[in-house]
């Protein structure tokens, strides 16, 4: 495996960590299961691609625009969540994904099925982030910022408010949480972060095509969150790493990537709904016990 190839995989992993963490804000924190997250990735990618190729904006501008525009679109696409709950919301988000892809495909402004090409490598503060190590550092930095945002949200009143609406909307209302307001927050924040990831995605590949952001991609992102452990910070990170890495390391899986994602989703739902490392999962309980007994040993030994 060449160094360049390894860096490509690592860069993708970093992008998918941001994506999985952003979906986790919506699905894990606020409890709104979405099967349309790839649409936000796509909107961010297309925003950046159009601004860079058509209008020649710099990376900094098109990256920030991708975040803002996707965030705003996310707020609007989150409006169905105010009317429908649970399984119906899942269906609605799925529909949204198909609509967004159709718009990319059939509206000429978005380049149609041929997509948009020749997206330049980004430059920031005079530094070029063309491929390889620099781009990996850039995407890792974005993943870290995403992680920091998620961690911070979980410590604030809004993090607690997300928790309450995920638990029970009536009980949430009884302590003063408007579930409508917080669902919209969750959609907005989640979409904005995914939009930024989309921008990085577009600049990394240099081209965007509608089908890249299709429904199956949403399944892939959701699988990462569920497989790793929904609602935690470690879960989506581990999920993104393992599910992006497995097809690369085990070449024979490559063609069956979505079989792996789909199969894992089914297995996790059946046997470990909390995910690999979710709170209360088999593995996480073992690890917690282990770390506790090590700690005790150290105290006893000291």
């Amino acid at each position: 495996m060449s160094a360049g190839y390894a860096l490509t995989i690592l860069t993708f992993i970093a992008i998918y960590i941001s994506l999985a963490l952003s979906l986790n804000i919506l699905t894990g924190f606020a409890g709104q299961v979405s099967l349309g997250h790839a649409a936000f990735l796509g909107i961010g990618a297309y925003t950046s691609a159009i601004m860079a190729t058509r209008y020649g904006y710099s990376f900094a501008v098109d990256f920030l625009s991708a975040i803002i525009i996707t965030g705003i679109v996310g707020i609007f696409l989150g409006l169905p969540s105010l009317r429908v709950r649970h399984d119906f919301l899942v269906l609605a988000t799925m529909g949204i994904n198909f609509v967004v892809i159709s718009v990319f495909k059939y509206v000429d402004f978005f380049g149609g099925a041929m997509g948009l090409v020749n997206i330049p490598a980004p430059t920031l503060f005079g530094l070029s982030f063309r491929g390889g190590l620099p781009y990996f550092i850039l995407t890792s930095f974005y993943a870290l910022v995403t992680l920091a945002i998620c961690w911070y949200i979980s410590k604030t009143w809004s993090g607690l408010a997300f928790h309450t609406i995920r638990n029970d909307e009536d009980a949430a209302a009884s302590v003063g949480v408007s579930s409508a307001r917080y669902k919209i927050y969750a959609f907005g924040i989640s979409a904005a972060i995914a939009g930024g990831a989309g921008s990085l995605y577009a600049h990394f590949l240099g081209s965007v095509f509608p089908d890249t952001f299709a429904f199956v991609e949403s399944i892939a992102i959701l699988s990462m969150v569920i497989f790793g452990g929904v609602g935690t910070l470690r879960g989506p990170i581990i999920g993104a790493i393992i599910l992006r890495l497995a097809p690369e390391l085990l070449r024979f899986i490559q063609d069956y990537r979505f079989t792996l994602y789909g199969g894992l989703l089914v297995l996790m739902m059946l046997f470990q709904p909390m995910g690999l490392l979710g709170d209360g999962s088999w593995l996480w309980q073992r690890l917690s016990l282990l770390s506790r007994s090590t700690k005790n040993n150290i105290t006893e030994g000291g």
Partner: protein
Amino acid sequence: MALLEVHQISHWFGGLQALRDVSLQADQEILGLIGPNGAGKTTLFNIISGFLTPSKGEVIYQGKPIQKIPPYNIVRLGIARTFQIVKPFTTLTVEENILAGLGMPYYPQMRGLISIYRTPENLKIVSDLIEFCSLQNYREALANRLPIGIQRRLEIARALATKPKLLLLDEPAAGLVAQEAMELADLINKLFEKGIQIILIEHNMRFAMNLCHRIVVLAQGEIIAQGTPIEIQANDKVINAYLGQE
């Protein structure tokens, strides 16, 4: 003027009339709301706490109509409630459940998005509430692991964290053994002494009769009697409503 006045409330669920011209006042007392199943007691609670908008009539709280205000804003006015089927935040600990109530002023504001909730001052308030509601042994426990009696006290603690002036308790003694019910009655009396007006729905007659200063009896959506526990116990209409005699 009473703290809460319910004026001529009627409510329909489709073609079914759940409440018919219900009027009552509550001020400076522990008010009991009793009646057979399906009498409309919980419907009335849902209307007062903003979870339902009545088809007709007004709810006047501190002199202002509140029947169109959504529940998450009703609690800001000082009306807190518990639920008949307990609804603690199951994936949060007892401490976090109470903190969630304490966050009430922050949720609609931008500072809710950016300020940290687990501060020493907030934890101090939580400690006081935990002690007040005798939840000391459960502070770090997840709410869904708790027995029903503890979950009911937790819901009261969470409601108290919003600093209510009026507390609506929906069957607080349901599922409790005698000893727990007695402790709960003590807790409710202590709340009243702290100046919190209380309205409670109860099926446990002994509990309601011993605790409440005044009782309102609902049957088939109408108020059929109100008065002191002693008056209610002697009221023929009430006895008929419960025993189904005519």
